């Protein structure tokens, strides 16, 4: 809300207080000041109205004009000017030599590109006024006399604070509410605000009124009042009122509209004035009939639905209740009788309707924050007073009141010691009373505590804890002492995922990867690269904002691939990137699981040449990283199974998936689909890896590893070579051999390792077969193994291999 310093002074004596002090005070009361601007114009000497009698192009500069300017003192002054927006006989502000413009900019006679210039023609911004059109401030339309000091054409200088009012402080959407806060903080009284016009008393219009009935059938409006004023002379409002409105950012219209707006600015209570002649039969607050239309003041035509509350006459809706008036029933220059409405609407309903029709008005903004029910009557009376005084109006009959105020003053019991207990420092009850009285609360001390009566304008104060906030807000938050934190609470369990996330990031950064953060939302194309169409649809948002962020991401890989593309395009030499973050995966039963994902990508082709070539990062490098990450997450490698991959993300035959069925961890690594990465302008291949860990992985803290004793006797190794079908995985063969060996040697002997050390296919082998060579390592726990028993064990392993259909090569 725009708060003018001069307008504030109508409500509180600010003598000795500067606008800067107020702008520093308000935030500490909970009213943030977004900006401080000046309104009107400071008097500036030697700044007068002048007329451009003629001008020509500067001989040496295309962009400059040389003007002959008359400021009414009988001489023509030559002034060089860079603006383009003027014509001959335009009147403009002229800063003569000696003038000091805002920013301490002194005007002197000078030469501009060898041409004499005796002053400066000014734009609005150069004078410290709000920026208008580009170029000079053209005053021609105002027809000011030549030589008039410019400040006489503008309102007296004022400072306007743009105050951000939090959702709980509807009372501060009126100047009086802001002034009350300042007065309380300064310890000064509020100036009285009283109306002479009588309060409303009846619920039926009298025969003299301009309307026949008033009723409310809408839950949106529990409290509705109307007054009739006749013989209204519509015309301009007084200068002081226009000034106040303009300082607040409102446009002056006519005295009737201006009075309703001015009273709203003071009290926060929106008012509406109908032209009585245009109201047929009477007035009803009701729900709109579906399909009814209403033409608003701004010309927009709304088609209403049944959830919309309107003010209607017997024929049609006149006003969108609490939001905006209609074009047909508004006050015009021909209006003579006015019906003045003041009401209280349910805040949430006004907010909803304003949002529904995308209409944020001064009125809806205030009703949506809950206006003071006690202010409904006061505001109408203040407006009636002003209409009598400034529009010659005459009040006819008593005011009509339908319903009653939904809220009034209420009393809160504040137990002794409560404030101190919340503050952590003493707060004597007498002091609490004194502070609360300053913001208009009534306080009555009892043996057990304070009875605090909160006026109806504070909808947000209901409980003792709310009074603590009021006390510390007005007393000053600097009075809160700095407490000493306690010792840690023993035995508190920390989320295991949190330390894992950091550990894995350090591990990858240590391995030469740079960490990226991508948005969690992506477009549908990116999801369908990872999931099938049905699953992709399950990740769609209900209300996306932009077309490129419509779905939850299912994988980190597409983002990382794009980061490679971006960094290649800017020559930032990307090589190895990673990301840690949540991704979302639909499961077979239709539920969606949120997984912690760790993904990485590696550009196999270095973007820059090097004096020495390294062994490239390959699928098996990625596999080693992934298994390391899985181990760190508590997923043992022995639980992981590896298989072929089929997804649009990966290159068939050059990538693998991993899974831990028990804990539903899943992942993949290998070469990214080449046709895709080529569309990203990436030469060569991209090796990537990703592991998805469901939240369940981290639910319990990991157990500490238990020590197992190891043998002090030497191991024995033996080799065995097999010819197996190409389709049989070496890992599966190794596992079969390990099982066979374990069975052959018994419990005392440990099969420490079965490792594949040679893979060969081609000459000498049948088609679709390959030769795999394994080294088997055995060790006895309590003695040295004998050659005989090792040979016997190996024979059994060879027999098992033969039984599996594999040829043992000797």
């Amino acid at each position, binding site marked *: 809300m725009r708060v003018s310093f001069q307008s504030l002074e109508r409500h509180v004596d600010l003598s000795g207080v500067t606008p800067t002090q107020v702008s520093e005070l308000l935030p*500490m009361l909970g009213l943030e000041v977004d900006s401080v601007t000046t309104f009107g114009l400071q008097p500036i000497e030697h700044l007068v109205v002048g007329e451009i009698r003629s001008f020509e192009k500067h001989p040496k500069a295309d962009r400059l004009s040389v003007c002959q300017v008359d400021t009414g003192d009988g001489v023509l002054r030559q002034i060089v000017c860079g603006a383009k927006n003027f014509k001959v006989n335009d009147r403009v502000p002229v800063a003569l030599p000696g003038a000091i413009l805002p920013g301490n900019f002194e005007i002197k006679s000078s030469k501009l590109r060898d041409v004499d210039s005796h002053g400066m023609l000014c734009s609005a911004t150069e004078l410290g006024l709000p920026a208008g059109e580009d170029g000079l401030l053209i005053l021609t339309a105002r027809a000011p006399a030549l030589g008039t000091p410019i400040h006489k054409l503008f309102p007296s200088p004022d400072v306007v604070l743009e105050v951000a009012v939090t959702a709980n402080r509807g009372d501060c959407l009126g100047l009086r509410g802001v002034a009350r806060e300042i007065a309380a903080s300064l310890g000064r009284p509020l100036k009285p605000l009283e109306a002479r016009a009588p309060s409303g008393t009846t619920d039926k219009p009298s025969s003299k009124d301009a309307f026949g009935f008033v009723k409310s059938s809408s839950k949106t409006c529990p409290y509705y009042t109307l007054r009739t004023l006749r013989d209204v002379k519509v015309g301009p409002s007084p200068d002081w009122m226009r000034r106040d409105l303009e300082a607040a950012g409102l446009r002056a219209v006519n005295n009737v509209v201006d009075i309703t707006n001015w009273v709203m600015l003071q009290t926060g209570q929106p008012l509406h004035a109908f032209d009585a002649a245009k109201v047929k039969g009477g007035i009803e607050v009701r729900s709109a009939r579906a399909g009814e239309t209403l033409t608003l003041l701004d010309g927009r035509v709304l088609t209403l639905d049944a959830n919309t509350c309107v003010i209607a006459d017997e024929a049609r809706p006149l006003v969108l209740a609490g939001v905006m008036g209609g074009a047909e029933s508004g006050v015009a220059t021909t209006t003579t009788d006015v019906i003045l409405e003041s009401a209280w609407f349910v805040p949430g309903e006004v907010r909803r309707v304003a949002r529904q029709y995308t209409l944020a008005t001064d009125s809806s903004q205030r009703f949506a924050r809950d206006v003071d029910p006690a202010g409904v009557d006061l505001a109408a009376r203040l407006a009636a007073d002003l209409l009598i005084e400034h529009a010659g109006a005459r009040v006819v009959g008593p005011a009509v009141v339908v319903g009653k105020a939904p809220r009034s003053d209420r009393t809160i019991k504040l137990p002794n010691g409560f404030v101190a207990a919340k503050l*952590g420092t003493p707060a004597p009850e007498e002091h609490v009373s004194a502070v609360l009285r300053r913001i208009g609360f009534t306080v009555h001390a009892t043996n057990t505590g304070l009875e605090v009566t909160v006026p109806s304008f504070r909808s947000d104060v209901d409980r003792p804890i709310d009074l603590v906030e009021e006390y510390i807000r007005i007393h000053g938050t600097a009075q809160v002492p700095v407490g000493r934190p306690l010792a840690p609470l023993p035995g508190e369990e920390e989320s295991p995922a949190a330390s894992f996330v950091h550990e894995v990031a350090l591990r990858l950064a240590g391995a030469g990867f740079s960490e990226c953060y991508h948005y969690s939302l992506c477009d549908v194309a990116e999801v369908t690269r990872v999931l099938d169409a049905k699953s992709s649809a399950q990740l769609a948002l209900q*209300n996306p904002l932009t077309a490129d962020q419509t779905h939850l991401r299912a994988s980190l890989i597409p983002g990382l691939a794009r980061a490679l593309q971006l960094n290649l395009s800017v020559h930032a030499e990307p090589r190895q990137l990673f990301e840690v973050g949540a991704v979302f995966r639909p499961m077979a039963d239709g539920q969606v699981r949120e997984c912690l994902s760790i993904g990485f990508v590696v550009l196999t082709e270095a973007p820059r040449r090097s004096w020495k070539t390294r062994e490239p990062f390959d699928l098996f490098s990625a596999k080693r990283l992934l298994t390391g990450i899985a181990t760190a997450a508590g997923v043992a490698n022995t639980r992981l199974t590896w298989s072929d991959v089929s997804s649009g993300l990966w290159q068939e035959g050059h990538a693998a998936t991993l899974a831990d069925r028990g804990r539903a961890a899943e992942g993949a690594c290998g070469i990214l689909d080449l046709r895709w990465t080529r569309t990203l302008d990436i030469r060569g291949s991209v090796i990537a890896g990703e592991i998805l860990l469901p939240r369940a992985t981290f639910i319990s803290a990991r157990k500490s590893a238990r020590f197992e004793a190891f043998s002090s006797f030497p191991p024995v190794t033996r080799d065995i070579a097999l010819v197996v079908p190409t389709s049989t995985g070496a890992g599966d063969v190794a596992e079969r051999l390990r099982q066979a060996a374990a069975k052959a040697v018994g419990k005392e002997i440990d099969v420490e390792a079965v490792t594949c050390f040679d893979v060969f296919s081609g000459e000498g082998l049948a088609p679709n077969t390959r030769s795999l060579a394994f080294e088997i390592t055995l060790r006895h726990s309590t003695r040295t193994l004998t050659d005989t028993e090792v040979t016997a064990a190996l024979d059994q392993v060879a027999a098992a291999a033969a039984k599996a259909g594999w040829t043992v090569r000797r």
Partner: protein
Amino acid sequence: MQSQLDSALKEAADAAGQIRTRAELEALKARLVGPNGSLTLVMRGMAALSKEERPAAGKMVNAAKAQLDEILATVSARVEQAELAALLGPTIDPSLASPDVASGSLHPLTRTRERILATFRKLGFVIAEGPEVETEWHCFDALNTPADHPARDMQDTFYLPKSFRSIDALRKGDEDLLLRTHTSSVQVRTMLARKPPLRIVAPGRCFRRDAVDATHSANFHQVEGLWVDRHVTLADLRGVLDFFVKETFGPEAETRLRPSFFPFTEPSFEMDIRSPNLGRLSDRWLEVLGCGLVDPKVLEACGLDATEWSGLAFGLGLERIAMLVHGIDDIRHFYANDLRFLRQFA
């Protein structure tokens, strides 16, 4: 005899300079001390000498042998060095750059997060987490944010369709699922899961339906703090947050609590800081976080008796803190993933 020894030694000394390989060295040894070597022959000749002659001859032979050993050891050392040089190849140029992949880097938000978490760990806070897809109940209802509150509007919050079911955020009733707008939902989850006293910090990703610009991002990160115990006070709030500010921004940083409004705290404040070490933003009050005492309605919604328990809570923006600490002027840098940005914080 002496002349025989001398000629053997001379042969050895002459040959030593020519020897390049271990094989040549072995051949020389054979010529001198092998079964038919010249020195061997001299020693054999000693058998023919008389008892009286032998001691003097023995001395001569031993002296000659010692000299010979010395010659051979020198040659052996030279040969070994040559062998190792051949094994290692040419000497290195240490001024060449490593051909390995350049060092990796942690994202500045990761670094900022870990620094903040470390600070609160010192104060006995432990880390808690919650899901990014959250129920309306956990995100709003339990946090005293009524159904008609603007924050719940479709214009400000991303919602998921009614058909969306999450195994990580089970609905309480028929409420909507949404992308959490703050990490305050973790307060609720923690209070429901554990009994006080508790002190937690919850880092996490949040979402608001904002158009992206220099200060707004479709997703961002918060660190939420919650301390529930008997008699938690505003003095405690100040104690915890002043400690955090001084750890993060240095001992020169000043703080102030500015009254504000959040539905889930009462009283509510924004904490501002002012520091001489923030570049362009030095020496002026800057908003860094929101905080307050946990509203009694939130405690009650989480099944705690608000007359027995009290709490403090705070929420800070990771991006905001990182921008202040590192002098970053545009939030979009955090999500653009340009390595020229990321590497600056390695």
